């Protein structure tokens, strides 16, 4: 109980004093997570929609695999990305290991199936509703996907926010590919892991509370900007 109170106190002081280290790792957390989120959403949302409207061989198997990939173990993803980007790996020449870019790549791999799967579920329902109309209006596949993405944007926002939630709290993969290097790849989650390892539970908890506050703030901000749940809007 004492640790929690100390953690809250530490979080409060770090936030009020705008602790430079905290600001740096918070901004890096946001940079890495939001970059991964934008890239993943750009891939996963159209893919989820496409999967909802197209009928092809092995479609059910594709959906099953996609759903299974939602539970992709981050440590395994981290290890795979590490091997691919290590000096001896096929992409070693790019020198991306232990950089925020490698962390973004790992996060993209982790959250893309999650966003695509949730998007697919939402769009499938909307497609059932719109199917006859969009076919009757003689729309192309691209126009159908565009209409579904636009009209389903609030449900898709939820899919993206689920991806954000998973990415911002992720530690296993980015620890492996980022290395938790001070002033280079340290983010909130890896800093928490480090402080916990050092036995500084108050600081670790303080960072944890900052992380939670950040996640809630981003969610509220996005909901506010898109006016979700406001009167007479879908």
């Amino acid at each position, binding site marked *: 109980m004492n640790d929690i109170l100390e953690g809250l106190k530490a979080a409060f002081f770090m936030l009020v004093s705008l602790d430079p280290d905290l600001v740096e790792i918070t901004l890096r957390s946001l940079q890495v997570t939001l970059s991964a989120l934008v890239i993943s959403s750009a891939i996963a949302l159209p893919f989820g929609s496409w999967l909802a409207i197209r009928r092809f061989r092995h479609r059910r198997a594709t959906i099953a695999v996609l759903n299974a990939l939602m539970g992709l173990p981050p440590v395994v993803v981290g290890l795979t990305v590490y091997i691919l980007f290590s000096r001896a790996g096929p992409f070693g020449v790019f020198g991306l290991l232990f950089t925020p870019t490698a962390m973004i790549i790992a996060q993209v791999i982790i959250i893309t199936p999650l966003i695509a799967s949730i998007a697919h579920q939402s769009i499938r329902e*909307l497609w059932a*509703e*719109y199917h*006859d*109309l969009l*076919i*009757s*209006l*003689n*729309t192309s596949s691209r*126009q159908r996907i565009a*209409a579904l993405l636009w*009209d*389903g944007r609030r449900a898709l926002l939820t899919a993206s926010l689920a991806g954000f939630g998973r990415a911002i709290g992720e530690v296993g993969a980015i620890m492996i590919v980022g290395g938790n290097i001070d002033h280079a790849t340290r983010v909130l989650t890896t800093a928490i892991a480090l402080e916990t390892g050092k036995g500084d539970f108050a600081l670790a908890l303080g960072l944890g509370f900052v992380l939670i506050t950040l996640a809630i703030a981003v969610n509220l901000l996005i909901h506010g900007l898109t006016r979700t749940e406001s009167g*007479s*809007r*879908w």
Partner: protein
Amino acid sequence: MVTSILPLTFRDATVKRRGKTLVGPIDLALAPSGLTIVLGPNGSGKTTLLRLMHGLERLSKGTAEWQISDVEVRRRQAYVFQTPIMMRRSVRDNLAYPLIVHGTPKAAARAQAWNWAERINLADAFERQAPLLSGGEKQKLALARALIRKPEVLFLDEPCANLDGRATREIEEILQEAHASGTRIVMSTHDIGQARRLASDVLFMLKGRLHEHGPAQAFFASPETPEAAAFLNGDIVE
């Protein structure tokens, strides 16, 4: 000169689903002009026939031939569903959508949308979300959205089901205007009064088959089959 997409000719047209025949076999030629009413009891195949004509159902057997190529045919017809499908957008965007997807610039599409909203008395609700409209308003909007591209043929599946007298009258007025301006209309209904008011010819469906087809006046005055006569009398026909 623009060639009409009609007549639409069905030969031995049959629609089956999971081995069960829903419609057919049907032989029919849909003439280039007129207002055809499709009558028949529940489950007689009215909706399937309309969907087949519009291309929403595939033939299991037989042929359906329009006067010209398939691609052009799809562009020049529209469909109004029994339960109006409202896109999760404003009235304005619902009306403008068919124009925008077929290449009309946004500003011009919205101007036309406004004209139609005024015409169907939905100007006050122009910016409102369409799914929040009343049943009658939704059906008027669906009809306007179907007519906004001036289709050559308009199919309507019981557009006035569950609507009150006033909303029904408004819909009928729009339909009569569209018909007067050259749109070929094919519509199913349960309302015999409405069929009498609107029809130039009648298709009477029973058990998935075209039971009777002819000019409206003759059909209502002296139906050829006892089933049609019973249906017009309000008896239960199965």
